[in-house]
Structures are given as structure tokens and as C-alpha cells.
């Protein structure tokens, strides 16, 4: 077993060279969603890199506007794609938020509340930790030794149990033996992105210990956020990890490509796919969810105008944006829903329960009639 006591989180100061690479060319203005909303430099990627630099170099005092603007970022990564200097803006913002916490200026009040829930109940909603596995079927038994683990995450455990249940149903259909770990905790994505690195590190450590104790070889997630965190951020914190991580869409697309899924039902609907930032731009998983969608009998698939690496963010912003700026999150969600409507679809599919939540709430608030679902929910239905 590896030594997991080694903690390694990159500080803002370690990004100084990266920030010096910013030629302040301003090309990010073309894609930055928060800039396009506010039309102010401090809301643009370039501005936020400058603010991060000013924060590091103590060139400007930390005003409430500064704190707010460093959080006015969906960390969607569109700037990373556009940047001709190849700057990792998203990681700089993450480190800057941690620096704000170091300087007692973060996170924002609503984010703090979420973090407190996580500290006490290991989920961002403050629901009892003891109820985390309530979604599992009665006959289901957790196992101590778990080579393949289904990591349901907080969203599927508490908000969308149907996603977790569909996953188990599909696994059963395929004869996959996967286990849910009793000690699963929040992956840590909210504190990781609101700057509370210590809390994120504690959660990571606890989850890694659980994986190790169970001899976990492979973890499958249904949440794009958990997927990125487990696959990218845990190794960033603790060095190389022993387990592999797959998103459910990657895992299932292999079965589809080998013709191992026997579809029975049909779903006659026009569907589009919303690329979650954490699955798409952050992890470059674009084809796997499309493979699933395009193989579901009856489903007519249409791409939105902005798709794959150009996809617009749902507005959730790793959840922390939604927590801090609820109305704005729904504004971004609405514009994405409208984009889906423009290509004449009845259902938006997305492989992230956070995107699903924000898009469906945005549609409801704007009174736009459209279904929001997850490809695996439809897949599970066609197995009946």
C-alpha cells in the first residue's frame, strides 16, 4: 500500500510562472461565460488571473469585490481551451481561492455552510450521513472486499437515487459485481473548489483509505465531478493511487462496443447531450456518452450548436458557483436549455447529476417544457 500521509496541494505561489505566461491578450473574452454576463474585466478569465496574481503579490487589498470575483468563475475551462498560451486558468483560480482562505477571506458565506454540512454529515446537503445508503435495494449487501466499486457520490445518493439504482440494475444485467462502500464520503469537490483545501484533503484521505482497505482496483462513478476529483485531484494531493477510475459512460460504452447489452425497449424521443465540464473539457470524455445515447433504440440524437469542447456550462460550476450565486447559475442554465430547445429536442441528457439538477431547475423556473435526464436512466429503462 502506498503512503497516503504525503499531502501535496499546489499553492498559488507555485503558479507564478504560469501566470507570467499570460500575455493578457484578452482572447478569453470570446468564451468566458461570466464575462459575457457582466461585461466587466474582473469577471473575465484574464481579469481573474490578474486578480490571482495581485493577490499572490499583495499588490491589491482583498476587498469584498475581489473575493466575490475570484468566485465568479464556473471553472468551466472554456478559457483553457481558447488560451493561445495554453494557460491552466482553472487551476490558478482554484489555487487563488485556497489563498483567499489562507488569508481569512474565503469561502463565501453560503459555501461555508455547505462545507459545515460536509464536515458533520459528509455530504453537502446536511442530510444524515447514516442515510447515505438508503437508496440501495433491500436485498443489497455491501461487501468488505471490493475490487470494483460503484462510487455513487452525494448527488446520486441523496438527490437522484434513481441514477444509483439504475446503475446497479445495469450492472446486474451485465453480470458486473460492483460494491458500494459503507464508508463512502463526499469526494470533496465543494471544498476543493471553494478554497477549503484542508477539508478536501481530509475527505480524499478518508476515501482513499476506504478504497485501500477494500482492495479496490476499479472505481466507477456516475458523477462527472466525483470522476474528475477521484481521478485527477486525489493523485494531485497524494501522489499516484492504486485504483483506476472510470466514468459509467466509459465503462458501459465498452460493453456496447462489444454488443453485450441486450436492449428490449425503445424510447422514441429526440434527445441532445449536454457535456458536463468535468467530463468534457476537464477530462476529454466526449465520445463515450454519445456512444451510449446513439445505441439506445428509438432515440433520435441531435447535437447542440455548442458541443464537446465548445459546450456551454450548465451554470452549476462544481456546485460551489451554484451555492454562492443561485440565480445566476439558473440564468446560465436557462440559456443552455434554450440552446437544447433550438435543436428541437424533448430531452436533454447529461452524465452529471449536478448538471441535471441545475438544468432541470433552470427549465422549471423559466417554464420551458423539456425533460432533463441521464443517459443511463434511459439505458436502464430499455433493459426492461
Amino acid at each position: 500500500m502506498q503512503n497516503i500521509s504525503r499531502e501535496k496541494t499546489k499553492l498559488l505561489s507555485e503558479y507564478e510562472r504560469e501566470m507570467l505566461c499570460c500575455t493578457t491578450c484578452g482572447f478569453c473574452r470570446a468564451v468566458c461565460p461570466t464575462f459575457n454576463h457582466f461585461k466587466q474585466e474582473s469577471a473575465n478569465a484574464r481579469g481573474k488571473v490578474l486578480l490571482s496574481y495581485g493577490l499572490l503579490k499583495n499588490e491589491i487589498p482583498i476587498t469584498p469585490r475581489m473575493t466575490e470575483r475570484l468566485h465568479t468563475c464556473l471553472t468551466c475551462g472554456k478559457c483553457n481551451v481558447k488560451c493561445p498560451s495554453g494557460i491552466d486558468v482553472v487551476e490558478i483560480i482554484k489555487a487563488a481561492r485556497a489563498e483567499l482562505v489562507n488569508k481569512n477571506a474565503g469561502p463565501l458565506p453560503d459555501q461555508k455552510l455547505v462545507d459545515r454540512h460536509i464536515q458533520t454529515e459528509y455530504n453537502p446537503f446536511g442530510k444524515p450521513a447514516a442515510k447515505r445508503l438508503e437508496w440501495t435495494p433491500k436485498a443489497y449487501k455491501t461487501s468488505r472486499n471490493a475490487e470494483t466499486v460503484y462510487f455513487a457520490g452525494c448527488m446520486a445518493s441523496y438527490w437522484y437515487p434513481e441514477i444509483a439504482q439504475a446503475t446497479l440494475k445495469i450492472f446486474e444485467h451485465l453480470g458486473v459485481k460492483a460494491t458500494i462502500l459503507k464508508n463512502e464520503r463526499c469526494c470533496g469537490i465543494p471544498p476543493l473548489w471553494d478554497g477549503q483545501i484542508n477539508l478536501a484533503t481530509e475527505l480524499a484521505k478518508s476515501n482513499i483509505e476506504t478504497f485501500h482497505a477494500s482492495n479496490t482496483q476499479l472505481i466507477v462513478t456516475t458523477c462527472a465531478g466525483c470522476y474528475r476529483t477521484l481521478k485527477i485531484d486525489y493523485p494531485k494531493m497524494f501522489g499516484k493511487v492504486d485504483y483506476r477510475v472510470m466514468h459509467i459512460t466509459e465503462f458501459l460504452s465498452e460493453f456496447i462496443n462489444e454488443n453485450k447489452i441486450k436492449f428490449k425497449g425503445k424510447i422514441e424521443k429526440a434527445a441532445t447531450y449536454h457535456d458536463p465540464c468535468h467530463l468534457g473539457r476537464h477530462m476529454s470524455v466526449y465520445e463515450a456518452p454519445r456512444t451510449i445515447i446513439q445505441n439506445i433504440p428509438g432515440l433520435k440524437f441531435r447535437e447542440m450548436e455548442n458541443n464537446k469542447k465548445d459546450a456551454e456550462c450548465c451554470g452549476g460550476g462544481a456546485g460551489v458557483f451554484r451555492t454562492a450565486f443561485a440565480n445566476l447559475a439558473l440564468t446560465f442554465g436557462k440559456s443552455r436549455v434554450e440552446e437544447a430547445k433550438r435543436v428541437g429536442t424533448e430531452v436533454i441528457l447529461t452524465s452529471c447529476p449536478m448538471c441535471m439538477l441545475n438544468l432541470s431547475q433552470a427549465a422549471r423556473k423559466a417554464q420551458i417544457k423539456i425533460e432533463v435526464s441521464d443517459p443511463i436512466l434511459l439505458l436502464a429503462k430499455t433493459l426492461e
Partner: protein
Amino acid sequence: MCQHSNVVKMLSKEKLLETLSAITAPDRVSIDSAELYCYSYDASVHMCKPDAVVWPENTEEISRIVKFANEDRIPVIPRGAATGDMGGALAIQGGIIVDLTRMSKIKEVRIEDLQVTVEPGVVFAQLNQELSKYGFFFPPDPGSGDACTIGGMVACNASGLHAVKYGVTRDYVLSLEVVLADGRIIRTGPKVLKTATGYDLTRLFVGSEGTLGIITEITLRIRPLPRHFATAVATFDDLVKAGKAVSRIMESGIVPAALEIMDKLRIQAVNRVMNLALPEAEGTLLIEVDGHPDAINEEINSISKICREEGAVSVVCSDDPKEREKLWAGRKAAYAALIRLYKPQIRPVQALGNDIVVPISKVPSMLKSIQDISRKHEILIATMGHIGDGNLHPTVMIDVTRKEDWEKAKAVATEIYRTAIELGGSIAGEHAIGITRAPFIELEHADLIELWKRIKQAFDPNNIMNPGKIGLDTIPKDPLIFLAYAKYFEGKNKVA
């Protein structure tokens, strides 16, 4: 950082905030240090802090802002996307930055008149996206086209890849609405394709860099979109040979839609950052022709033949639109991509010695001189440019944390500018003058400055409109003034 000389002497910041809020709205004015910090930068190497930023939404608001500023002698700095690399959008003497980004309406598309009327904050790429629905376009195509605004393009007389065939912004501006320094709103002419009535103020405002007034509405001539394209990539083992091929192409009577040159450093950088697989030769020409399919076929073949005769190592032609898109995306990223060639602080500095223009016939001599200057000063210069119109972008690569490197770059810039002028050229093709090139303006126009100053005086007697730009003021005398990186060698900061 910039030390303010004459700013807001009589007026407290609170009064400034209150007045500007009353004219616009409280959430459209800021004097917050974080916001001002962001507005202390543009795409240049300088850093100057303004006193306030305001985001007006219409001409009347701008008129009232300027009137108030004029009464209190506060500098007013109009700002578009701030993608300019000469410091034109910075508050060199403090003052109010007027960010025009919120004025982004395309007001009228009049295809039958071959015209479009826009607010200054409309982004170039968005305008062309709209015009493409009608099969038309606004041709000047700056590298920053996805982000830069039409107002900024007009104020700087911007152009880009396609100027060789389609000309520059100035060639398309028909009429302007402008707020003058005393708050008056004027229109420079009727919205017609030609007029011969008196002095041409429209053309005076194009390239005036915000020193004469704030442009609040622009009427542009538009052109039908070309339907077919062919591209050629020709590589040479010597940059000067590539320059000679260009002269031959131009004298053959063919007018390419784009004719670009990139040296080895640029190609390497673009290959690395954009994942292109262009051959890494000493000199590469990227050539495009557009028009009728039969004509472009013949033209691209002739161009290819000329390149071979001039010693091209390879010539690859294509009419695949995807290849074309990739090629130009690579070309547009060629500046910033240089940054990934060496360690982070070794950066391309576009502002010093860049953007010169010489007659096409003098391009080979200019390229040769650039190479000599590079060797003489032992400084890396990555060259590319719109070679088809004689506009070159030699870019020095320096360690931005070292004072010696900056001094060297300044010496190189001076020599490059002198050489361009000696060859009958100009120090600025399309990036304007701003702060960085103001100290060099007398090299080219010593005899005109006095006349320019009198024009400025007539429009802006109190010198509130974007002061310190184009070399009309006594400052700046040094292109390294208010250098954002100065902290690295003034001992305050060490790079981690």
C-alpha cells in the same frame, strides 16, 4: 505602476463615484481596487491604474460623462476589448476608463445598401457571424478577431490576414457618430458609399486612438463573402528566399487573399501548442486565394510554380475547408504560442520592434536586416507577418524578469524602426502607436507632429481625451515607461 500626475486633484473619489453613478447606474461604475487593478492592464507590457471605470450603455451617457470630465479636466480613456498591445487602452495619467463593451448592438444590417451600422462594443467575430447569414462580411481580419471590438478596430485602424486583398478598417468606414471632448455629439458624414463634401473627418477619426473623441456608432461598408478558397503552404530553407518568392507572386498579377510568412520559431511554437504538423523550415509562406473555383485553381497552381522556381523545399496545396480553418487558427495563435517554446519568463514581447511595414519590394532587405540585428544584439527574434502587404511582425524573445533584456529589446526596436523608415516604410502597420511606440513617432513623422498637435488642440483643447498616446504629449519618452514587469528587477519581487 503609473504615478498619476494631474488626476482628480479637485475631486474626491467618492464624488467621482457619485457623479458617474448618477449619469449611468451604481452597478455600472467602479472605483474598487480589484476592478481598477484589472483595468490597469491591456495586452501591452504596461500597467497604469485608472481612477474609475464606467460602463455606459448609450451615447447620451457617454456625452454626459465626457462633459463632466472636461469641466473637471479628468482624462477619459475609451476602451474596447483591450486586446491592443501598445497600451492604447490604459490610463497613463489616471482618469476614467470608459468601457464600451456594453454597447454591443448591431443596429442595422442594410444589405441592399452594402452597409452595416453597429455600436462600438460589437465583437468582430460576432459581426461577421451575423453578416454571414446574408452571405456578406466585414473583411479586415485581425488576429484578435474573436475578442476585439469594432470600436477598437476603428480607433486603431486595425487589419490582419486579408488586408493584402481586402484592405484595412479605414477602407470600410463610411460614417461615424462621435462624442467630442466637450460632450457634443457629431456625425461625420451621411451613410453613403461615397461623398466628396469637405474635410473627411471620418478618416481622421479612424486611427485616432481615442485622442479626438469617443466613437459611439460606426457604419461600415460590407462585401459579399467569397465562396471558394484554396491554400498553399510553401517552405524555404532561407527566410530571404521566401521574401523573394513573395515579390514574384505580387508582380505576377495575382492578388492573394492572404499571404503570410512565419519563421522556424513561430512554426515550432504553433506545432507544439496547436498540434499542427507543419514542416519546420526556416521560412514558411501560407498563401490563400479566393474566388471562382476555376480561377483559384489556376492561381494556386501559378503561385505554387513561382515558389518552386524560387527554391521552395516543399509546396502543399489544398482546397479542404477544414485544413484552411486549422491553418489560420494556427497562424492566429502564433504570437502567444511562442511562450511555450522556452521557460515561462522567456516571453515574446510583441510591442518592441514589431508591426513594421515596408514596400513589398523591400521585404527581402527588411528580413535580412532583422536577421542581422538579431545576431548583432544576440537576441532571439521570431518573425512572421502579412508579408503580402509588406507588414512584418518581428518579435523579440526576452526574459521579462531581467532589466538587461528589456534594454536590449529597446535597442533592437529602435534599429528595426529606423531600418523600416530608411526602406521607405512605417513603424506601425496595424497595431497603432499607444504608449509603447509614442517615443518613436518622431522617427517617422517629426515634420507632422506640430500639425497633429494643432488638430488635437482643435478637438480637445483641455487634452482630456486619452492623453499620452500617439506621441502628442511630452510623456512618454521611454517605451519601457510604467513597465508591468519592472518589479522583478526593482528588487521588490523575485519570481518563484
